Every structure is written in structure tokens, then in C-alpha cells.
């Protein structure tokens, strides 16, 4: 059978307080079916408490061939990282 259904991206929140994370993609005829399919494909081992689905075509992605101008300028600007502070010993878990 040829599958003409559009592709959907699935985002799942694993527990309250955490953000939704991208879990994968699947095919479905519409949003309602995408939600049901996502429930069956991605949360059957109790991985989540909330699901978002969005049709893949609605996602605008950066172009890998433009990675140079998009990302490389950030590589040599170490001062943008908060690594130049001296932390007192009493501060833990940083």
C-alpha cells in the first residue's frame, strides 16, 4: 500500500515541569490521527504526559550549506560563555 499521508513531527513532554522534546516523526492523514498515532508509537511505555504534533512542512529549517555564516562566527567568542567568574567553594552544583 502506498502511503500518501503527510509527515508529522512529534514532541513529547516526559513529565510535568519539563519541556516538550522532539521524539520523532510519523505519517497521518490529519492532526487528530497524528495525535493518536503518536500516542501509540511514542508513549506506549509511559514516556509522556503531553504530546504536540506539527506537520513537518510547517517547520522552517536552517540550510546545512549555510552552516558557515550561521554558526561558525560564534566559535571564537568565548567571552559569551559565563566561564570567567571565580565561584566560591560554597556554591555547589554549578
Amino acid at each position: 500500500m502506498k502511503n500518501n499521508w503527510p509527515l508529522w513531527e512529534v514532541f513529547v513532554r516526559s513529565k510535568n515541569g519539563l519541556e516538550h522534546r522532539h521524539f520523532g516523526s510519523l505519517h497521518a492523514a490529519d492532526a487528530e490521527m497524528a495525535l493518536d498515532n503518536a500516542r501509540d508509537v511514542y508513549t506506549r511505555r509511559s514516556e509522556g504526559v503531553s504530546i504536540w504534533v506539527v506537520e513537518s512542512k510547517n517547520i522552517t529549517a536552517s540550510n546545512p550549506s549555510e552552516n558557515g555564516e550561521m554558526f561558525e562566527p560564534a566559535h571564537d567568542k568565548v567571552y559569551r560563555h559565563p566561564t570567567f567568574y571565580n565561584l566560591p567553594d560554597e556554591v555547589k552544583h554549578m
Partner: protein
Amino acid sequence: MKQDTLYQYILGIADNSLILGQRLGELCGHGPTLETDIAITNISLDLIGQTRSYYQYAAGLCDDGRTEDDIAFLRKEREYRNVLLVEQPNTHFGYVMVRQFFFDVFHLLFLKELQQSSDETLVAIANKAVKEVTYHQRFSSDWVKRLGDGTKESHEKIQEAVDDLWRYTEGLFYVTEVESAAVKDGIGVAVSSLKDAYYEHIKSVLTEATLSVPEHSFFQKGGKDGIHTEHMGYLLSDLQYMQRTFPNMNW
């Protein structure tokens, strides 16, 4: 209530889940798409999980050391008490969904009543199962509407399944002697009282799906009394193959 009557009553409930679970299990790996394949297998596992709870309870009522596996695998065809609807074959996806829909609507009404039983174990099983079956009904109703109100071909195919499987619906409401005894003791569900709500629900979904409700009033008898259709033997030979070939084998 006599232990044996309770035992028989539990099997009457559980056998529906076992046989439908087995039917759906046959589809594992056969699609029609990856997503529906997993959904159908999930439903199958829900049903077999419910079956295990019932059979474990039933096995505990006997003092001859029998286990849930003995009950599932080592009975003869006439000792299975499932309704005829659930043993019908997976002719095509339309049949799979209509069979599921016809059963789910009954199953949910039934479990909601079973939650009021005076038997604590049955109430506990029903409380867990009711959430699973609520989803099953949502899934199968959704597909009946999609296929009915879909393309010309999908409409024709699902109408064919509705027309063919309709004759097995009334068997759901047949009351056996064991059931009457269980109802009298406050344990069992009076299935005949669910009938009006059942057909009302079924008809409203079929209408929404632009499908016609069959008018014929011939209903196939059997199932709960152990008299099955010709499909049952083949199903059981698959189901029981391992235990019959390698008696007492374990995982």
C-alpha cells in the same frame, strides 16, 4: 455463589478478550501502515493483559493447581465462551475496524457496569480496563467514520463489513444460565439491559460515518454456549499449537 459458577462467569468475560486479542495479534507486522500496525498490536496487548488478570483470578478459585496458561491453551473449542463476533477473521481492514467497533462499544458499556459489581477483584480489573477500552472505542469509532466518510472504495468496503458482521451483534446480549446466576448474586452484569444503549450508540456513529444501518433481523446464535463458527477451529489451532506440540513448555 458457588466457586464453579463464578469460575465459569469469569471465563465468559475473559474469553472475548483472549480471542479478539489473538485475532488482532495475527496482524502484527502486517500493517497496513507502521502506525496502525503498532496501534492494533497495542490494543491486542491490552486485551491479552486483561485476559491474564481474569484467568489468574479464575485459576486461583480452583484447587487443582491449574494456571492461567492451562485455561488459555488447553481447553477444547466448545469450552470457549466468547461471542461469535470476536472470532470472525481479519478479512480486510474494514472488517478489522468494524469488528473492533462493534465489540468496543459493548465492552465499554459492560466494564462500566462491572465496576459496580460486588466482587472486588472484578471491580479492580474493570477499573484498569475501562481506560484502555475507552481508547479502543475512540480508535475504532474514528476509523469507522474515516472509512465510511472517506473515498467511494473505502465506503463500500466498510459498508460490506458492517452488513456482514451485523448478524453477530445480538449474540452479545444473549444471557446464559451462569450469567443469570451471577447477576442474581450481585456479581455479574445484566447484559440484556445494555442493549438499547448499545444499538443507539452504534447507529449514531454509523449515521455520522454516512453508513447505512442494516435492516435485516437475522442474528446468528451461538458463541457463549460454546457453539462457534467454522473460523474458531483454525484460530485455536494457531493459539494452542505450542502447548499441544510441546506440552508444559515455558518461556
